[in-house]
């Protein structure tokens, strides 16, 4: 319950001067250096590359940005990445929720153990985990080995024969890439949801039961809406991490490029920094919009 608290005008000292002093160093770093860097990068998006010399032409043009949307393959990259990010985020939320709820209900030692269980994968090197997934997903890898033992190979074949999502094997299909993304970012989703769930007062759950709601109704109408800030906070991670990753799409999955790979390749190759910059604007814009939305849902208090 929110107890009205009288907020003093000066919580930790007096006056605007101290606020300014406190604010200056982080603002200088983030507002000037970091934001400046982003703007500096943006600037390149308005340059172009000379076809003959392969040098950057430092002259204002919309052409580079226009090529993002006028070139079908570029548009493909953007759409492909977006769809994957959305799918990964949704899947993470769906898988994370029961785990988070379970951990939130636990008490004492078993809770501590579970929190460690959830955080531990974050500490095993990201790269090693990604490469480990190749072993799992390979055509003759762990997963097919297990499925063969269980006589479920036909299930896998059915999944692989899906249009777009499937492919010759899990490790060279979008399905496989999706699995790896979900795996790698899952803890980032569990932790904020769990924190949000723990902030749902027990009395609300009781009140709901008292008013005749069955456990599922209580979950759907009270617990879930109140933990949305946590979901939003977690999805900031899963969404933006998927949006910019270039390592996972390089190691597993179908051939198409992702935004991260595109930026990486373009800035390295022939130094096409303008196109790279234009491409990085896409995640910047999407993330900004997303943050504005998440903010509405109260994600910032739940990060």
């Amino acid at each position: 319950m929110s107890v009205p608290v009288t907020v003093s005008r000066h919580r930790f000292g007096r006056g605007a001067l101290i606020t300014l002093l406190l604010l200056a160093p982080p603002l200088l770093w983030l507002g000037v250096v970091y934001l400046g860097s982003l703007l500096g990068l943006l600037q390149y998006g308005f340059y172009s590359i000379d076809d003959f010399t392969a040098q950057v032409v430092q002259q204002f043009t919309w052409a580079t940005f226009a090529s993002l949307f006028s070139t079908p393959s570029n548009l493909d990259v953007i759409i492909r990445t977006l769809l994957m990010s959305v799918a990964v985020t949704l899947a993470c939320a769906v898988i994370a929720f029961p785990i988070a709820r379970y951990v939130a209900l636990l008490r004492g030692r078993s809770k501590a153990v579970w929190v460690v269980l959830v955080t531990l994968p974050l500490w095993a090197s990201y790269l090693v985990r990604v490469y480990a997934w190749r072993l799992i997903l390979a055509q003759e890898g762990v997963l097919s080995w297990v499925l063969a033992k269980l006589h479920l190979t036909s299930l896998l074949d059915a999944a692989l024969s899906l249009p777009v999502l499937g492919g010759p094997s899990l490790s060279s299909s979008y399905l496989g890439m999706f699995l790896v993304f979900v795996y790698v970012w899952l803890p980032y989703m569990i932790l904020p949801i769990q924190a949000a769930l723990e902030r749902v007062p027990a009395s609300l759950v009781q009140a709901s039961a008292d008013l005749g709601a069955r456990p599922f109704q209580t979950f759907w109408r009270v617990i879930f809406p109140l933990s949305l800030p946590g979901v939003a906070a977690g999805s900031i991670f899963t969404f933006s991490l998927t949006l910019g990753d270039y390592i996972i799409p390089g190691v597993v999955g179908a051939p198409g490029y992702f935004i991260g790979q595109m930026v990486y390749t373009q800035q390295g190759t022939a130094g096409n920094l303008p196109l790279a910059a234009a491409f990085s604007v896409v995640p910047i814009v999407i993330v900004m919009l997303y943050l504005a939305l998440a903010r509405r849902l109260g994600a910032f208090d739940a990060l």
Partner: protein
Amino acid sequence: MTSRPSPGLTLAAWLGAAFLHIPLLLIILYAFTSEDRTYTFPPPGLTLRWFGVAFARTDMWDALWLSVRVACLATLLALLLGSLAAAAMSRSHFRGKDAFSLLITLPIALPGIVTGIALLTTIKRVGLEPGTLTIILGHATFCIVTVYNNVVARLRRISPSQIEASSDLGARPLQTFRYVLLPHLATALLAGGLLSFALSFDEVIVTTFTAGSQQTLPIWMFGELFKPRDRPVTNVVAILVMLVTLLPILLTQRLSSGGDYMHGGGKSS
């Protein structure tokens, strides 16, 4: 009603945990494989050889040491900037407050590659030599938010009357900071610090762009994964890191669960 997890929920949670941990088990298993190139499953045989090989790699130790240094310094910087930002934000409303909170979140919300390239262009522009310093600065940029979030949450829980009470009892602002604020923030700083240490320690993408010729551990691993031989060595190192970091995780657990008393100042217990 003491809510207990229903059987369905328990099953779902255990399945989720299995999903999270089976790959880790696999990493452990393949640190012992006797066959190092094709990674067939199940592995043809087991050996302890890779541990010896890994420990003998001086470049691995160098990379590890660099990573530790970078993570420590980046965390320190993040602690400083993050706490300052949190302190400023917990004060009265000022114009642009919302924009500022967005700004702090940005480095972690934007994909690492954007942050990396953006910083790189600036580094080049100001003529800075990419090196340990630029790695640290890059890492600190996205670590600030983890510290900030922890501290802001804690400051929100400290009742303002605590600070007023201290002042009322004759403590000058610095004393209030030393005797009241700092003890309250200690665990939040620790938790935020550990998280940012972890983020920095495992960061590949931003480092790729801001590093000079030095190799942090993840960059070393990246090279090693591309390298023709000794792939299991990376698994050995991954296990090592997991084991070593289990300790601080457990520690934070302790501290954050013991943190309940922190708001026990009110009337109702």
